[in-house]
């Protein structure tokens, strides 16, 4: 398995209502060991996965939102969030968790993992992938 492929995890569902957001994270974490070129796309209701201040105590489910902050440590640092999807949902970057990583090619400078892109840019990002896992 020396081949490196571009993997895109396409997240279009809100968290908690269904298990897909949680499972997407699970695959990303397991997949990190395979040293592929990994990107995450947050489109449509998928942008709700990244809201800050999630507190699941009242619904009795596990709050998995802290896991997004661990992605940088797994060299998963391309989290593309669609601008139009945010706007339609009354959200801005300020409503999302700050997610960062240390760039080892730039003296370990701390950089933002979240990259807000337009729908047109998102379409290009999808087009550049080898494998798209839809959640």
């Amino acid at each position, binding site marked *: 398995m020396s081949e490196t492929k571009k993997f895109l995890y396409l997240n279009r569902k809100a968290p908690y*209502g269904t298990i897909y957001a949680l499972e997407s994270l699970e695959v990303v974490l397991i997949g990190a060991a395979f040293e592929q070129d990994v990107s995450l796309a947050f489109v449509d209701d998928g942008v709700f996965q990244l809201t800050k201040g999630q507190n699941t105590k009242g619904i*009795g489910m596990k709050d998995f939102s802290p896991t997004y902050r661990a992605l940088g440590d797994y060299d998963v640092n391309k989290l593309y969030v669609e601008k139009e999807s945010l706007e339609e949902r009354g959200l801005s970057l300020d409503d999302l968790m700050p997610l960062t990583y240390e760039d080892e090619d730039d003296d370990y400078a701390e950089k933002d993992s979240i990259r807000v892109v337009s729908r047109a840019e998102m379409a290009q990002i999808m087009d550049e992938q080898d494998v798209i896992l839809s959640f």
Partner: protein
Amino acid sequence: MKFAIQINEGPYQHQSADSAYQFAKAALEKGHEIFRIFFYHDGVNNGTRLTTPPQDDRHITNRWVELAEKYDLDLVVCVAAAQRRGIADADEAKRNGKDADNIAPKFRISGLGQLIEAGIQSDRLVVFGD
């Protein structure tokens, strides 16, 4: 007041089974009666004793069992839906020539008439699903 609850989705995939549980628990704690909880469609998958969720996650089936023990609830699994999805008690397993069964304690398998009856006998039927 007498409630009946219908659950259309299995555990973990959708929040329906969680919402139904929280609703049922709140109703019981307020002193309401629950005439029956009817597990329909994929909802029958709430009733398998073979689940082993992660330690830090809720155990949806056991939660139903404990609630049923505490309040003497009637947990009914739709027989036709159960047959399609591989939920069986000892009788069903025997009748269908299966070498194992998997139903959890406190759950019983019965027909759709139980749902209609729940609609007739209860004051409110609340449906949780996808």
